[in-house]
């Protein structure tokens, strides 16, 4: 392993190269674009052997990736925001076909109005599609999860496509230390591609023609079951990957920080986990007994891990960088459905590029703990970083002392 200062997007591109992907379907959309630019550059330099299809839309990006995958080739694509929404029909199509595919989503707000900044609603909108969905919290994890995704997706106990998300700009464009596995390590880790069937003239299967109702329903059930079953595969693959990156902890789906000794738990996903950890250290020093539970796998949703981790907490605070309109926010809803506690409250923030720092998390968490002590930590709040602030990108210029 060698260490380099690279961005999240470069890290993903390197993972794709290390995975010896055969075909990449590419279509630009900010903030994902530098992934595909990097891959195109590698191809031009002769560093990458993969076919690159420069398609005319995200719908086509997924379709071309899917076409290659069905025909027996390891395939990858990446997108974000409107692109993921435009691709939505094909993400479902690929899922129903049980074909291993890996996609990276550099999460971004959804229009209208236009907003190019970070938000996880695009990613979360695919929750019911049946894809495996992991969300990274730093560029290293984006690389590690992308590599693991190929292995998990191609495991015969799974055979489902997998997407890896990361916060747009915040991770996609942040340059930081990333340990890059050696080719031999990944070649040993990632066996040649396996898939449930290969569509070619040697085995003239028909894929996707009409299923009778009962058969269709059985297929749907089998997908659900494979998705649930994938939990064990993820842990198994994660454990093995820890040999490649000893600094990463992948033997569980989700990640605890000072949680087991905590009375109060904060649940969230993505890049701001780092800032929240800083806040938790600060609050712990002040005697507030709080810990963090970071959701890394949105699908499969590990009922077992999550309820075990949170069951004896006095109260749980779920912070979402996404909305589930009319119901609040996705992680909040999911946690409420998983954990049987009297006090679960939610905070929605960070939408459309609203940035929170350590102080914001100190504010949010201490407010939550105060409420919880009164037995009133319930319901959803929308948090704006400034007192009385509006939904505007908080540029540093407006940070007051």
């Amino acid at each position: 392993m060698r260490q380099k200062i690279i961005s999240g997007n470069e890290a993903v591109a390197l993972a794709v190269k290390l995975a010896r992907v055969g075909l990449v379907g590419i279509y630009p959309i900010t903030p994902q674009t530098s992934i595909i630019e990097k891959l195109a550059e590698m191809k031009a330099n002769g560093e990458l052997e993969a076919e690159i299809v420069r398609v005319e839309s995200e719908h086509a990006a997924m379709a071309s990736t899917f076409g290659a995958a069905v025909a027996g080739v390891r395939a990858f694509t990446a997108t974000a925001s409107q692109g993921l929404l435009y691709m939505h029909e094909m993400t479902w199509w690929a899922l129903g076909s049980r074909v291993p595919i890996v996609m990276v989503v550099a999460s971004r707000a959804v229009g209208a109005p236009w907003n190019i900044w970070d938000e996880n609603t695009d990613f979360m909108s695919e929750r019911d599609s049946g894809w495996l969905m992991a969300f990274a919290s730093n560029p290293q994890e984006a690389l590690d999860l992308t590599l693991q995704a190929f292995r998990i997706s191609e495991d015969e106990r799974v055979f489902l496509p997998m997407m890896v998300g990361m916060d747009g700009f915040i991770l996609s464009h942040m340059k930081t230390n990333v340990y890059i596995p050696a080719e031999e390590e990944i070649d040993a880790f990632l066996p040649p591609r396996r898939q449930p069937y290969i569509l070619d003239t040697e085995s003239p299967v028909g894929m996707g023609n009409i299923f009778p109702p009962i058969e269709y329903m059985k297929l749907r059930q089998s997908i659900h079951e494979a998705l649930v079953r994938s939990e064990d595969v993820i842990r198994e693959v994660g454990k093995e990957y820890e040999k490649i990156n000893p600094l990463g902890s992948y033997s569980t789906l989700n990640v605890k920080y000072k949680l087991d000794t905590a009375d109060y738990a904060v649940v969230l996903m993505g890049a701001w986990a780092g800032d929240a950890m800083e806040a938790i250290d600060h609050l712990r020093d002040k005697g507030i007994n709080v810990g963090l539970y970071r959701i890394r796998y949105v699908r499969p949703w590990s009922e077992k891990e999550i309820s075990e981790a949170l069951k004896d907490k006095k109260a749980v605070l779920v912070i979402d960088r996404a909305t589930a309109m009319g119901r609040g926010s996705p992680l909040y809803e999911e946690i409420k459905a998983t954990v049987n506690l009297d006090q679960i409250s939610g905070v929605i923030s960070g939408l459309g590029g609203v940035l929170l720092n350590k102080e914001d998390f100190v504010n949010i968490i201490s407010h939550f703990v105060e409420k919880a002590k009164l037995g009133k930590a319930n319901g959803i709040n929308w948090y704006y970083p400034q007192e009385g602030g509006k939904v505007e990108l908080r540029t540093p210029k407006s940070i007051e002392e």
Partner: protein
Amino acid sequence: MIISLEIRFHGRGGQGVVTSAELLATAAGIDGLWASAFPIYGAERRGAEIEAYCRISKSQIRETSPISRPDIVVILDPTLLKISNPLRGLKESGKVIINSKVPPSVDFETYYIDATKIAMDNNLVKSGWPLVNIIMLGALLKVIGTVSLESLKIAIEDEFEGKIAELNEKAVEIAYNSVKEVEKIAV
């Protein structure tokens, strides 16, 4: 406190502010340190005010938010002092490194270097603008002392090709050796 050094870069779109922060991080990485660099993204336009951040630490960096309490502020364009407040949030013990012909009067420990002149003297001009971004890193390195000039040169060679790399390496060394501290005038 895990973060050991937080540096904020101020400049104008087109001056290479983001590249400065990234090259510093790359150099720190070569020295075996942890580092992270990122800008605030938006509708960047040539000439418009822009800032970028770099954190350097001996241990893993967890924060991903913009730097609001920097240890060091690097200002690529002295006129920004008049039109905005690049010094906001700077720690009391913080330092300012500024591209300026003359010693500016700032209430912080301040270092100045005429990066514009160094750029012109060394033929580092692009689209009519002197390329001061890398040069400022030479001055910064001298002031912070935690990242080596050698590593910065490697980072420059990695980022640029041929002549531009050569010119920048030379200019960085000049800046490293000629940055000056502003003498505090007792009030």
